Each structure stands twice: as C-alpha cells, then as structure tokens.
C-alpha cells in the first residue's frame, strides 16, 4: 500500500518537475528555433490532413456533382428486365406524397447516335464521324430547377420550351473537349454551338442544331444528348408517358435510405428500381473513392513518419547539446523520469502547437477557401474534406508518434553515465 502511494507520488513529482523544466526551457529558448520547429510541425500536420483531404475531396466533389446533377437524393429507374418505369405517373404521384419530398425531374432516355458529317457521307468513301450516346428527353425548366445543369454549359445556352429542333450535347462526346483517338471511343470533330448534326434514335433520324455544350463533371451527364421531352416522345415513339429516370430531391431531414424504404414499402419496387444516390454511383467512382482513401492513408502514414523523424531529430539534437546539463540534473538528484518527462512534454508542446495552428488553418482558412474555390480537376471540382472527428484522430495519432519520438532520444541521453555526461567525456 505504502509502496504504491510512494510510486504514485514519485510519478506525480516527476511529471511536475518535468513540466517545470520543459516550460522554462521552452520559454527561454531561442524564439526563432521554436517558431521553426512549430512551423515544421504545422506543415507536417497539414500534410497529414490536407493531402488526404484533397484526395478524398477530389472524389467527394465528383460524388456531390453526381448527386446534384444526375441522381438527386434518390434515383428511380426501370427494373433491369424492363426498358422504362412502368406506371410512371402513379410512381410520380407516390413520390410526391411521401414526407421529405422537395422536387423531382423525369427523364426519357434511349440509346442513339449523333453524326457530325452526315452531309459529306453522301459522297462515296467518306466515313461518318459518329458517336453513340444516350439521348435524354427532359422538361428543361423542371430539370434545371432540380439539377441546375442549365448553369453548367461550357458554351451556348440551355434548352427552352420552344427548342424543338435543338439539342444540348455533353462535352465528353466532342473531340474539342475530349480529344481521344480510339476506335472504341469516337468523339465528334468540328462540332460546336450552331453546328447541325444528325440525331438517330431507333429508326428515326432528325437533323438538329447544337444549342449548348454541357460540362458538368457529373458522372454520365457529360456523355448525354439532351432534347425536349415532347420532341423525344415523337422521335422515340413513346406516347405512354412512362419515363426512364426520376431523380428526387429531399428536404435534408429525411435520409435517402429512409425515403427509398418508404418508396419500396409503397410498392414502387414492383414497377421500378429505387436507389439512393450512393447506390446509383457509377462503379468507377466507388473504386476511385476506395483507391484514393487508401492513397490518402499511405501519404498520411508517410507524413506521420516524417513528423516522427522530425521530432526525433529535434529532441535528439536538443538532448545531445544539453547532455552535460542532463548529467548535472542527475547529479543534483533529479530523477531520470522527470528529465524524460521534460523532453516528452516539450515534444508534445511542439505537436500541440502544430495541431492547433494547423487545425485553425484547415477549418478557418483552407476548407472555406476550397469550398468557395474548388480545385478544377478534369473530372471533378475538388474540395477539401476534413471532418472534426477525422482531424482529431490524426491529431491523436500525431501526438502518439510525437510522444514516442520525443521519448526515445530523451531516454538514450538520460541513460548515459552521469559523471561522463557532467565531465563531457
């Protein structure tokens, strides 16, 4: 019992003396040295948080765009064995009555072709410059109100109610924006706003004018051809009002999963496939997300090793240059534990400073900045993803690494012979 008490007191006393030494050492050390070390720790922490945050944010930007401009919170599409959503008007009615519903947009869709040089192919030997695309019929007002794709035009204008002979084409179908020379992926050359192209849906062909070119960076949107739903029904022979996609936007309080379950409970699952925005994500997006998360962790781990080595070097150099004073401390009866505490506490101070400054930079400067000015990656508008819990975890890991990196050199120097340290031999 008494031994336990004495041990506890000794730890407490050692910690108290260690703190006494560490505080004074830090307060009276060269301020520029301290600033430099804290600067390095801040950069290390930023490396841990920001690099992986940007990598994840790159994909988050893409996922977010996919959700906003394609799937909505919940996407309703045909059953796998069907070519359209059966009982579409009924399904729409059910959707509109469920709590959490805010808005929806309906789309017709059929695979088709777009030919750019269709006039030249009348001459013998001229190969048509054509590409396959999903032709989508929309109500432009409703679509723009729900997905906002009308603001994502790279050139030209979005469709309006009277544009019966016009289309908006995705940038991925045009060579100018997607310069790919591949037999399996052909893009249209010499096509811009105002160009006339031949649109083929089933057996129907129609000459249409390109009114706008869309580049939304949202999944398949940029590989689509948009036209008025009324015109689509004519050329696709669809008079039954059964649509192919219904994208639903929710109020933010109801989760996509909850809404999906309500739809299924209402029997919608008998006529259509119901997916949350996560279910509806393209597979490549899920794969890239997993890949980048892994990559972020790898880079973060390297950052952590760099931080540990930095602290190790700082503390080791600090301890080595004060080897004689460590000997004196031991000589006057200061315990090894107290001396080690003083170095570990100094390390933790550096880590804490780096974490605090780094966190302030992340949450008050970098995150708002990237939210307002996303990084213009080719396939997404990258933001900085940094959650409080994720950042706290990284800070904790940095503290542990710092604690070990500060303890090891302190232990190495403190264990040296007292007299040798005092005499500097």
């Amino acid at each position: 019992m008494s031994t336990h008490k004495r041990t506890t007191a000794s730890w407490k006393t050692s910690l108290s003396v260690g703190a006494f030494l560490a505080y004074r050492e830090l307060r009276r050390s060269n301020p520029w040295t301290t600033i430099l070390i804290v600067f390095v720790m801040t950069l290390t922490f930023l490396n841990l948080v920001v690099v992986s945050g940007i990598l994840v944010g790159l994909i988050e930007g893409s996922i977010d765009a996919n959700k906003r401009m394609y799937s909505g919170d919940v996407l309703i599409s045909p059953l796998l064995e069907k070519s359209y959503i059966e009982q579409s008007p009924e399904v729409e009615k059910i959707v509109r009555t469920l709590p959490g519903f805010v808005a929806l947009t309906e789309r017709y869709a059929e695979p088709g072709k777009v030919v750019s040089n269709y006039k030249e192919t009348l001459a013998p030997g001229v190969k048509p410059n054509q590409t396959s695309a999903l032709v989508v019929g929309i109500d432009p007002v409703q679509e723009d109100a729900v997905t906002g794709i009308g603001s994502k035009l790279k050139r030209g204008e979005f469709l309006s109610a009277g544009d019966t002979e016009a289309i908006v084409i995705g940038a991925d179908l045009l060579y100018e924006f997607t310069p790919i020379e591949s037999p399996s992926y052909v893009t249209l050359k010499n096509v811009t706003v105002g160009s006339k192209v031949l649109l083929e849906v089933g057996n129907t062909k129609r000459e249409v004018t390109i009114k706008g070119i869309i580049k939304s960076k949202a999944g398949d949107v940029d590989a689509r051809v948009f036209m008025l739903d009324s015109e689509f029904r004519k050329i696709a022979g669809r008079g039954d009002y059964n649509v192919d996609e219904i994208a639903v936007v929710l109020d933010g309080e109801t989760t996509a999963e909850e809404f999906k379950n309500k739809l299924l409970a209402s029997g919608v699952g008998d006529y259509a496939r119901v997916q949350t925005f996560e279910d509806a994500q393209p597979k490549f997006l899920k794969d890239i997300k997993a890949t980048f998360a892994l990559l972020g962790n790898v880079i973060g781990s390297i950052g952590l090793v760099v931080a540990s080595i930095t602290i190790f070097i700082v503390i080791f150099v600090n301890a080595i240059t004060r080897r004689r004073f460590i000997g004196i401390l031991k000589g006057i009866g200061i315990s090894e534990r107290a001396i080690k505490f003083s170095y570990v506490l100094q390390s933790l101070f550096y880590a804490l400073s780096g974490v605090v400054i780094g966190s302030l930079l992340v949450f008050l400067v970098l995150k708002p900045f990237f939210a307002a000015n996303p990084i213009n990656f080719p396939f997404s508008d990258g933001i900085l993803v940094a959650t409080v819990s994720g950042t706290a975890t990284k800070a904790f890991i940095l503290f542990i690494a710092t604690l070990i990196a500060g303890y090891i050199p302190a232990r190495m120097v403190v264990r040296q012979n007292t007299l040798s340290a005092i005499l500097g031999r």
Partner: protein
Amino acid sequence: MPLIEVKNLKKTFQSGEATIRAVDDVSFSVEEGEFVAITGRSGSGKSTLLYQLGLLDTPTSGEIHIGGVDVLTLESDGRTDFRLRDLGYVFQDYANLPSLTALENVMLPLLMQGYTEEEATKKATNALARVGLQDRLDNLPSQLSGGQQQRVAIARAIGHDPKILFADEPTANLDTETSETVLKAFLDLHKDGQTILMVTHEPEYAELTERIMVLADGKLVSDKKTAKH
C-alpha cells in the same frame, strides 16, 4: 558513529594495457559537522575520490557508509534519491542550468523532493539569502558574475539541508577576491554545523578548514587537523 566511513576504497581505470589507480586503498572517516579539505597535486585522485563519495561514480572496490547506509548497495534510482535528499554538490564550473533563474536553479531539487512551489520558493529564497544573493533571485546564470554563479550553486547544494556538502574545487575559476567570498560562504555554513568536504589545490584555502587530507597517486598520504582546529 561517524557520518562518513570509507574503507579500502579503490578506483582504477584501464588505459590501454596500463591500470591507473586513481584512488588506491583509501580509508578514513568524517564526523558530523567537520569541514575537511582534500588536497593534493593535479592528478592525485582528489576529485575522483569526491565523485565516489558524492555517488556520482562507482568505485572498483571498497565500502562507503554515509549516515550508516551502505551507499554502494543502492540501485541507480536509490543513489539518485540519496543524492537528492542527503547530499549537496558544488561543481568546479558552477553547473547551473542556463534556462533557469537563480531562484529556479535552487528550487529544482526541492521540487523534486516533493515540496510545493510555494514551499520551494521560500526555502530557495532563504538559501540564496544565506549566500548573499537575495537581490539576484530572478537573474539567469548568464546575467551573474562567476562568483555569484558559484554562490547560486552553493545555495542549490544547501537548499534542502543536506547531511554533507561536497565541493569540487569551488574557487578554481574565480579570482582571489571572489574566491574569498565563496570560502566565507562555506565557513559560515560550517559554523552553522554543515559537514563539508572540499577539494582544493590551494594550500591557503585548505588551511581555512579544520582538517586536511592529502592525496598523492591515489593514496591518502596525510590526514591531519589544521592549526585552526
């Protein structure tokens, strides 16, 4: 019972194939309250002897009993704790910690003994006042003269009322006037009953003590009371 009892103490070093006997079969005892000077020529082993007595080094063989404790049986932590509570050590070159003020240097061993900051401040202030530095409490070592720094070291060594005060050539780096101030501090402490063992190579300073032990080639060749005594 003597405060310090040394029996057949030996400390040897290996230098190539040669064995150097820094302390060679030394035996003596010191009573509580004595002021002893250990003197001898350079390389005679006087500092080495003090390191063994101050538990800063481990002898090759022999026995050291301090206050009835066989100190050579203590483990490393036990020796550190013994130094903390029972011994005070004044080094030749002051050995103050540069990042601590005079007051903080003296407070440090007291805090390690478990005194509160308030108690440690009070005791440290008293110790500094005893060596005449009551107006230099908040000065860093770099802001003090050599003599003042040595007096801080003395205050640190006596702040916790040690059983024995060891001083290793405390005036070696000081001018005559300052040396006398430091020696006066030792004499005042001795008057108050402090047991002191001081290594010095200055015969006139050794004469100020009450007993002189002379070492030559590691052997204790003379051990006599001074005229003062």
